């Protein structure tokens, strides 16, 4: 029962970008749970002076759209400031993938949440104020 995925989703699923871990990361965030069948973990390397995300990696357990969403989201925040990265929305991730099937939109939400978690982890470790996280109803 294959769902209809866009070519971009399939591309990022077959050849995901930024897979892996960062040793001694500056921020780590995780979202999802095994019960729902999706877990996403994001690792950040942030330049302390410029606050630019110099490197980002992910590890994801989940379906094709979860893997593609992680891959795309990491692409979209790499080289951006932590403020810009915070403003990345799940719909921007989905749009960049040329859309996700409606039932898979929660995968893009997961990417947004994992990035928020990772950014707050970084902020906490660097004496910055945490930004309140809105959790989506999924």
């Amino acid at each position, binding site marked *: 029962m*294959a769902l209809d995925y866009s070519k971009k989703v399939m591309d990022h699923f077959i050849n995901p970008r930024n897979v892996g871990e960062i040793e001694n990361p500056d921020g780590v965030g995780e979202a999802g749970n095994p019960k*729902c*069948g999706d877990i996403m973990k994001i690792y950040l390397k942030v330049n302390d002076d410029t606050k630019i995300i110099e490197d980002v990696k992910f590890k*994801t357990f989940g*379906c094709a759209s979860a*893997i593609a969403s992680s891959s795309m989201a990491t692409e979209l925040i790499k080289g951006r400031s932590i403020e810009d990265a915070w403003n990345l929305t799940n719909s921007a991730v989905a749009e960049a993938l040329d859309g996700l099937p409606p*039932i898979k939109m929660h995968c893009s939400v997961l990417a947004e949440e994992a990035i928020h978690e990772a950014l707050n982890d970084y902020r906490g470790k660097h004496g910055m104020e945490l930004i309140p996280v809105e959790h989506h109803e999924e």
Partner: protein
Amino acid sequence: MDHTATTPTSPEVLKAMMPYFGEMFGNPSSVYSFSRQSRTAIEKARGQVAHALNADPSEIFFTGSGTEADNWALKGTLEKAKLKGKNHLITTSIEHHAILHSAEFLEAYEGVDVTYLPVDSEGFVKVEDVAAAITDKTALVSVMFANNEVGTIEPIAEIGALCRERKIPFHTDAVQAAAHLNIDVKAMNIDMLSMSAHKMYGPKGVGALYMKKGTRTENFIHGGAQERKHRASTENIAGIVGFGEAMEILKSRLDEDKAINSARRDKLIAGILEKIPHAKLNGATGDKRLPNNINFSFIGVEGETLLLDLDSKGISASTGSACSSESLDPSHVLLALGLKHEMAHGSLRFTIGRLTTDEQIDYVLEVLPEIVARRRAMSPLWEDYLKSKGEL
């Protein structure tokens, strides 16, 4: 390798069906002699199906699908039993949705009490559990012959004997089993049995319900007098002819197919266990498993990703993961076997059949280990699992 979903109509079956789309179009209900050909064709098919089950032809009723046969057996029997004040149905937690959703309907609208029997970790229903669930209100016991997802073959003859002794009608959904196993409805004390043609190299859109003589069941489809006044609708003659033909061919080669499939099944199972660490076989082994079913969970990987990776290598399979379907819940069967959600999400099913070759089995064993390893390498769950086992 997804023969459980459906099978291709075999060329011999198609050939037998063809005339009934064209020159032999007579409505079997008409009186003129032209229609006799259609009637004769249906009765021949009825005989072919009956023979395969050791039933009498008068006990076979053609339906539009296996699902319809299941709906009929449950709703028709419970409806009739209501007149005698009986409103209890016993079934299992691993049935096909054709049974489960019919049971839920009866609970919601007909005041029926349903007992959903649990299964053990291999998917077996315990005969003692069936016995213990029977009350003086029990109108029907319905236990599937073999499970479509994990292939476990239930103790049907034992449950049949119990139900006969306790005088409770016994129905079995044999939609999968009938395509692979020898079934003798008399020896197994089966009162009702559902089947579907397209699982056995017959056409889609036709099934059958076997009903032992004297079974008290209300009609499900009301209208004309077809199927000896038990199932209205102008007959799907070509479909019925195809079903009969498919059943006869199946029966003639069943033992041979069973031996070939079982050998390939066991080769694939052994190969996966050998080449993929921490692979878990779901369901039973040996003779207690459908000869064509292979179902594994791979901790750390989600099923849909495996399906798509396999598809990119030209292999078709199936999964119990929610992510492959329109719902977000993983397979009710795998959860009933006691699998954790993440294991149910990580399941992969191969079902082999006449189109399967030894080369395909080798090919799966060649590509699957790499696919699983690659997806595991990007999974945080796999990392956690290895740490919990002290392997990382």
